[in-house]
């Protein structure tokens, strides 16, 4: 199979269009998906990630052919598949709610579409056993679906999607029904599965950890618009805007509104509570005195230091010892600046600490547009 391409795909649901037409917002566009272009290389595992209502499931359904596209095209290699019938697209689908046939056994559920295609019995048996082995449900084949646990049902569900040897496997929140432990186990299995059979897989999820752990590449969407498309490392370490920076990471990135001021000659970021943080040299060319920005730094990229070189001197509000991690929170008006440290002494409310930011993980964002302001390339 060749790569899957979405070219400027739009989707507008008819009824929303009608309802909103009077509001004259058509021009602005109430698209469920808006101008989405993605190139999905053969054999890769792609995560489409975003909060509810971001258009991720709609995108998946358009790829599957369950939803017509309003504008644009979907290609596999050079072939436009936008108008193809779902069954001719070579796609396997597994949804969050398993949609298995309750009166049938596990075997018959997995075999269903092969039988519908009138494959010879021997062949069906061989394929079902093979897939059941991969998905570790071979001991359950004679069970009725209703007797299975959630995790087992989802395995059967994925097995059924795989048995047709699809070119593309689509997974829509396959784990969100399951409890924490089961989710983790199946997450590991899905990853191994993809490694084993290597078919292009697209996973829709709202859970950033799921996307980060499974996907080779993540597309983050918000309100129908693609925000960033990149590897988990790119998304984590090089977010293009505030939305991505805030959405990825747990505990989340510290994002603080600051104004650029001066302390003597040195430029500083003045926080809302008038405390200051030294501006890293790399930002000198892009900041203006008196302007407001949003700075971003992850809790693990701040270090508590001892010596004379530090970026800020701040007062601890909350110190939490969570065993392997210590969390230090500094109150900045109605929010916190959070530091996660593995090894630090016990601190108390009111203690002053010196902190140093990891410079190459210190981000700057435009306050109005939320876009990342990049420092000039170093020569």
């Amino acid at each position, binding site marked *: 199979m060749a790569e899957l391409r979405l070219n400027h795909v739009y989707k507008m649901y008819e009824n929303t269009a009608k309802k909103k037409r009077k509001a004259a917002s058509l021009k602005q566009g109430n698209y469920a998906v808006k101008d989405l272009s993605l190139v999905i290389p053969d054999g890769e595992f792609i995560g489409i990630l975003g909060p509810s209502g971001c258009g991720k499931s709609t995108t998946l359904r358009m790829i599957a052919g369950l939803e017509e596209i309003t504008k644009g095209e979907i290609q596999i290699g050079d072939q436009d598949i936008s108008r193809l019938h779902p069954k001719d697209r070579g796609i396997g689908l597994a949804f969050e709610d398993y949609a298995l046939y309750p009166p049938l056994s596990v075997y018959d559920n997995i075999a269903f579409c092969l039988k519908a295609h009138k494959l010879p019995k021997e062949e069906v048996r061989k394929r079902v056993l093979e897939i059941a082995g991969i998905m570790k449900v071979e001991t359950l084949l004679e069970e009725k679906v209703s007797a299975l646990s959630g995790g087992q049902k989802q395995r059967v569900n994925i097995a059924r999607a795989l048995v047709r040897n699809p070119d593309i496997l689509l997974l829509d929140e396959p784990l969100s029904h399951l409890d924490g432990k089961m989710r983790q186990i199946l*997450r590991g299995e899905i990853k191994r599965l993809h490694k084993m059979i290597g078919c292009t897989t697209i996973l829709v999820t709202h859970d950033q*950890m799921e996307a980060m752990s499974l996907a080779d590449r993540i597309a983050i969407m918000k309100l129908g618009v693609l925000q960033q498309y990149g590897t*988990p490392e790119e998304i984590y370490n090089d977010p293009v805007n505030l939305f991505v920076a805030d959405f990825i990471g747990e505990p989340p990135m510290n994002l603080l509104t600051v104004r650029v001021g001066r302390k003597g000659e040195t430029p500083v970021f003045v926080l809302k509570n008038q405390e200051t943080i030294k501006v890293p040299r790399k930002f000198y060319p892009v900041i203006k005195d008196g302007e407001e920005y949003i700075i971003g730094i992850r809790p693990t990229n701040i270090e508590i230091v001892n010596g004379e070189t530090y970026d800020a001197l701040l007062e601890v509000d909350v110190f939490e010892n969570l*065993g*392997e991690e210590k969390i230090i929170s500094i109150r900045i008006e109605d*929010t916190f600046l*959070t530091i996660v440290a593995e090894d630090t002494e016990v601190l108390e409310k009111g203690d*002053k600490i010196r902190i140093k930011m990891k410079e190459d993980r210190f981000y700057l964002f435009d306050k109005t547009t939320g876009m990342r302001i990049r420092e000039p390339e170093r020569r």
Partner: protein
Amino acid sequence: MAGIRLKEITKTYGSVKALDQISLDIKNNEFFVIFGPAGAGKTSILNVIAGITDPDEGDVYFDEKNMNYVEPKDRDVAMVFENYALYPHKTVYENIASSMRTKMHRQPQEIIDQKVKEVAELLNITELLERQPAQASNGQRQRIALGRALVRNPNVFLMDEPLAHLDAKLRNFMRKELKSIQERLHSTTVYVTHDYTEAMSLGDRIAVVNEGKIVQTGTAGEVYEFPGTEFVAKLFGDCEINLIPGQVVQEQGKLYLKLPWENHRCLLPEDVARVLREKEVTTVDLGARSAAIEYFRTPEEGCIQGQIYTNEPLGNKVELVVKAEQAMIRFTVKVDEKFQIDEKIYLRFDMEKCLFFHSDTKEFLTRHQRQTVRGGRGNGRA
């Protein structure tokens, strides 16, 4: 304000023993956490304190006063639940004031006004007072519910998973908010949760509950560093503790731990060896958390060899599961450490950081005690 004492409380529902001889001594003004898995009996304990549930046996005391036959309304406890139970048609102000307008706790208007504003300030919801709850966010609603309980100055505060409803981000934030106002609450608080981070962060002390029994009571440091049983050890930490069967063997006067890998044995620290000798233990379960596991990409002295089975990002770190012969070992590494599935990795257990449990009773035996004074001051401080 009162201390709470529970004495041998037992409660059965049909054939199920929900609470089995629960005894607790909660000090005045203590923030006490009841922690355990679902169905452990946490909420039942809370209900017994509140008087909503009558125990079959046992006594409830507030300070020295026996409360067994005191009606819930006369116990002067304030409860905060997971779902906030706010009045949707009343303003935030009126919601908070409502607990001071009941027959039992009626207050004059000036006092109400003063208290509402005080509490709103404390909880950072002053600007919401004139709004309706529907116009507040989830986190704000929880704060309003908290405020309503706070203004009454109750004897006892009971909180039943107040943060469980919120999404991860907000939960973290609210946990810190709660911790930050904790010392200003000035009241005895009993807090039920199944989230170990909440338990460790908020609790002056934690009671770990399982199947209607108290398994261990102690400070966060105690239950984490010295868990009474393997069960308790497993409950604390993002990444479950590894429990590996080991044999204690003596060679040339020194005690070693033989682990289930070929020719793999580790020298036990002297204080650990002494305890194991005294107790005449020959088999133990070694408890190894992430901090006790060192890893290398190339073979090193005293390591076992394994392969990456899965690698799972957990936000700011990555959990690795390593398959080493028949055993699966899980631990966390920094998020920028990249490992591929099936990649070779070499692990070493740091005996000075491991816990030792009895292999039959699963009870805690010993661990190496650091020489340094815990909580020592001096570095990192301006």
